[in-house]
């Protein structure tokens, strides 16, 4: 068990013009499951590899369990890792693959046998111990990679998009299993993914990265509910957060937002921006769709209707903005119909049109 402290990590790849990670500082608490999430090329894998010791930073430091490991080779860091490609060794049987880390650390054979067996039981690999990886399915290879990583009892478990090579159904299944396993062993875990759903479901906290910087860190629901900038709201969630520009109008009756020729009630706090345009963000599930006009409802025209089974995903046009909203599955609506949207002021988030940063808290 160990915590990870990354301090001001800067890394520029040889020949690269931009920084892969740009002054990144991040702490993963002992036993915590932290997910690094972001679009491809945002530097999340680079950050993970610097913790693993597979890359060295240009500046900054990495400490694991209070020990500065910035310049130590991977084998002296007591970390273990699951690779995106699994990286299990094709010339070794499953048993030898899982035992590799223990053998390199000169663990007695009886002890190796016992721990390999235990790991194989946890990952349901007992029947496959004497097979070669080429004789396994993708999902089973994934299990071997995880077994090899947990069997060494390292202080820190690193995972680099371990589920991205599995098909959708298997990914969903294994995700839950992975969460259970990691919870059981309680290892500090740093997990990299570009899949926001994976990040939301797995992490105790998630760190959203973009262009080499960490944009927001926090518990998944908090990051989901209160994105610190427009990018985060647009990256997390399916469908992503809706954004439209509106002008703040402060009046004696309360604060409102003007969207095209319509008005929408807004929280008082935004009144300070009276007369100025702001970007309004709202999650699809926080927009109520109705067929009749009413107080505080916004008129919108339906463009696309997509049944998803559990609900109806509507693409609607509000003034010049396109929004994604959800309606109950039995909702009767056709393209070109007019619908009325209602969203409570408490569900609205506000962003600066220039900096795209959140305007309140």
């Amino acid at each position, binding site marked *: 068990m160990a915590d990870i402290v990354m301090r001001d990590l800067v890394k520029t790849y040889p020949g690269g013009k931009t920084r892969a990670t740009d002054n990144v500082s991040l702490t993963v608490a002992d036993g915590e499951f932290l997910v690094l999430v972001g679009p491809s090329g945002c530097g999340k894998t680079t950050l993970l590899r610097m913790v693993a010791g*597979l890359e060295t930073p240009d500046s900054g430091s990495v400490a694991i369990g209070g020990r500065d490991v910035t310049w130590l080779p991977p*084998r002296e860091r007591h970390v273990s*890792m699951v*690779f*995106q490609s699994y*990286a299990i*060794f094709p010339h070794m049987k499953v048993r030898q693959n899982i035992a590799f880390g223990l053998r390199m650390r000169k663990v007695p054979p009886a002890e190796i046998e016992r721990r390999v067996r235990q790991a194989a039981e946890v990952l349901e690999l007992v029947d496959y111990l004497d097979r070669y990886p080429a004789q396994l399915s993708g999902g089973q290879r994934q299990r071997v990679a995880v077994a090899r990583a947990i069997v060494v009892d390292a202080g820190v478990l690193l995972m680099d998009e371990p589920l991205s090579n599995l098909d959708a159904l298997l990914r969903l299944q294994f995700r839950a299993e992975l969460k259970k396993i990691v919870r059981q062993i309680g290892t500090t875990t740093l997990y990299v993914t570009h899949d926001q759903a994976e990040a939301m479901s797995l992490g105790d906290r998630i760190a959203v990265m973009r262009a080499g910087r960490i944009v927001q860190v926090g518990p998944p629901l908090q990051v989901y509910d209160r994105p610190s900038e427009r990018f985060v709201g647009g990256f997390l969630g399916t469908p992503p957060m809706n954004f439209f520009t509106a002008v703040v109008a402060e009046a004696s009756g309360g604060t409102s937002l003007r969207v095209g020729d319509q008005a929408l009630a807004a929280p008082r706090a935004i009144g300070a921006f009276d007369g100025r345009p702001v970007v309004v963000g709202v999650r699809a599930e926080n927009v109520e769709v109705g067929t009749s006009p009413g107080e505080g409802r916004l008129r919108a025209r339906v463009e696309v209707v997509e049944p998803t089974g559990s609900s109806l995903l509507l693409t609607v046009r509000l003034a010049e903005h396109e929004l994604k909203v959800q309606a109950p599955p039995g909702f009767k609506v056709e393209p070109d119909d007019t619908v009325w949207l209602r969203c409570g002021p408490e569900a609205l988030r506000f962003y600066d049109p220039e900096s795209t940063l959140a305007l309140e808290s």
Partner: protein
Amino acid sequence: MTATRVRPPQPQVTAPEGDTGRARRARRGRAIALQVACVAVTLFMGLPLYLITLAGLSSRESLNRFPLSLLPTDLSVETMSVFLSSTGVVPGFLNSLQVGLYTLALSLLIGVPAGYALARYAFAGREPYQLFLLLTRALPIVVLSVPLAKVFLTTGLYDTTYAVTLLHTALALPTTVLITSAVFVAVPRDHEEAAMIFGATGPQAVLRVVLPQALPGIAAAAMFTFVMSWNEVLGAAILTLNQRTLPAQVLATLGDSPLAYRFAGGLALVLPAVVFIAVMRRYLINMWGTTLR
């Protein structure tokens, strides 16, 4: 897995009789053509081997008979034993073997690390180095041999198997380096990194994870090197007088020997190379339940 894929049951197509019949015939025709092509290629390679073996194992008289029998009806080891007992053949054979194995060891010892470096590290002059490697093969041995002979004369290496070994190593190295580097490129970097995460040092990672996976390619390079050395005549003939390798020995005495002797020499030259290839073949294909390059 290399298990045969089971075809799902074909849906019954109710096309006109003639169409399916024609399609089936066309497929059959293609299958037969493929078989014929395979047999033709095999014969092209195998027939000369067969004829040499046959002639090498025939008595001198039966070779001169007309019409010449193409079936192994009249086998004898007489020609072979005469050939093997003639002066210089057995020492030549031993010299060839020694040169071949030394060349193999030396070129792998130098070539494999070089191939690894080419595959894994980006260093200044990497591209020119690769080109330069190939250029060494552009020089004909004839051009090289005279200066080489002079160098070996002054260093006292002339007329030793070491001289031939050095020459063959120089000839084999470029291909060894290029073949092994291609194989190392194919071993994912991840595997090495995984090994290092799980406690291996750099050299340990290479030894335990990369080399075993590169084995087929290294076997190919070894095969190529050994056969090259075994067959190389010109350099060996120029650099030696008494310590002849087998091809050089056969070449030197070929002109004034009877036909049967030439065939026996041919067989003695072909056989070890074939055996060596047959042994190395298992490293080339089908290891660990999967087919590697």
